[in-house]
């Protein structure tokens, strides 16, 4: 598996573990049809992008 794909797979796995842990802990707060489907978008794309922009300033 190429490095980029491996990194991507690891990122998804880490996001999944984080979601399950948060879900177990907070239950309805993240285990709902609004937060759930958007979680990977926020954790894997939007938050790293925002942090990257903040870091480059």
């Amino acid at each position, binding site marked *: 598996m190429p490095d980029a794909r491996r990194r991507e797979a690891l990122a998804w796995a880490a996001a999944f573990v984080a*979601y*399950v842990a948060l879900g177990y802990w907070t239950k309805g707060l993240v285990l709902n*049809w609004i937060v*759930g489907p958007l979680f990977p978008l926020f954790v*894997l*794309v*939007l938050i790293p992008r925002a942090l990257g922009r903040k870091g480059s300033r």
Partner: protein
Amino acid sequence: MSWAAHEFENYFIQKHAGIKISFLGLAIGTLSPDLFTKSFVYRSDDPAMFHRGWPGVGFSHSLIFGVALALLVLWATKSRSWSLGILIGQWAHVATDIADTAGVMPFFPFSIEPVTISMWRHAASEGRYGDAAAYYSSLGGMWDLFWLVVLVLVARRTLSAEYFRTTIVPADPRVWAWLHRRTGLGERGLLALYRGLCFYGAGRMVSWFLYARFGARTPFQPLWNGPSYLTSYNDLSDAGPLEVVWRTTLGGILFAGFLWLLWRLVGVRLWRRGIDPPLVERNRTFF
């Protein structure tokens, strides 16, 4: 009710329908029966009756509700792929919910007899957490796992970036392009959005299963009509099997007749003025 199977089914359906249906339409169709009613179900005096019966919001789990939504969307957007997606998604939800004891009224209003195979008990009367714990202590949890395995074995290709590029976007080019323009998301972001439903289903399944085992500590009883630790069956009908078959058959015949009439009077006109995704227009093979 199913807690994660509805999410996994979408990818399986999409694999077979390809570019003829919109994935976003399919997802909304699948979510539609519970979208605005679920939070009220737990506050109701009789959750099973309110959720699936009549009087109540059980009509949202009927085939006619999917037809009405699909026609409304076809009228408003002219998009055939969205209309079909919503119809198939909503019907898939109805078919799946036959498995619990409350069942569904597929041919409402022509028959209000609930149809069920009683694979697991409808447990909304236990409250949201109790419902989740009961579901993941019964065959319901196994049903979710079954659909996850089906997705991995048969339809995992639908989660790939290439499939997203060659099928999901061409099936719905206007909406994905609009999302790209409005949100500034690139392919990676849109792909995360597309995969989000599968992620949500799997995450929800694992979290609630762990909660049932280590939080609520309910006994794991994945047997037909379980879990047996619940005292209530929440079966909405006292009718015998023959009575159910008779009423449902009659309702089904009347529904089929109504559907035919609706198609002739309204559907065919809306369909003709509808628009297919450009790739379907070019390689017309199905409609």
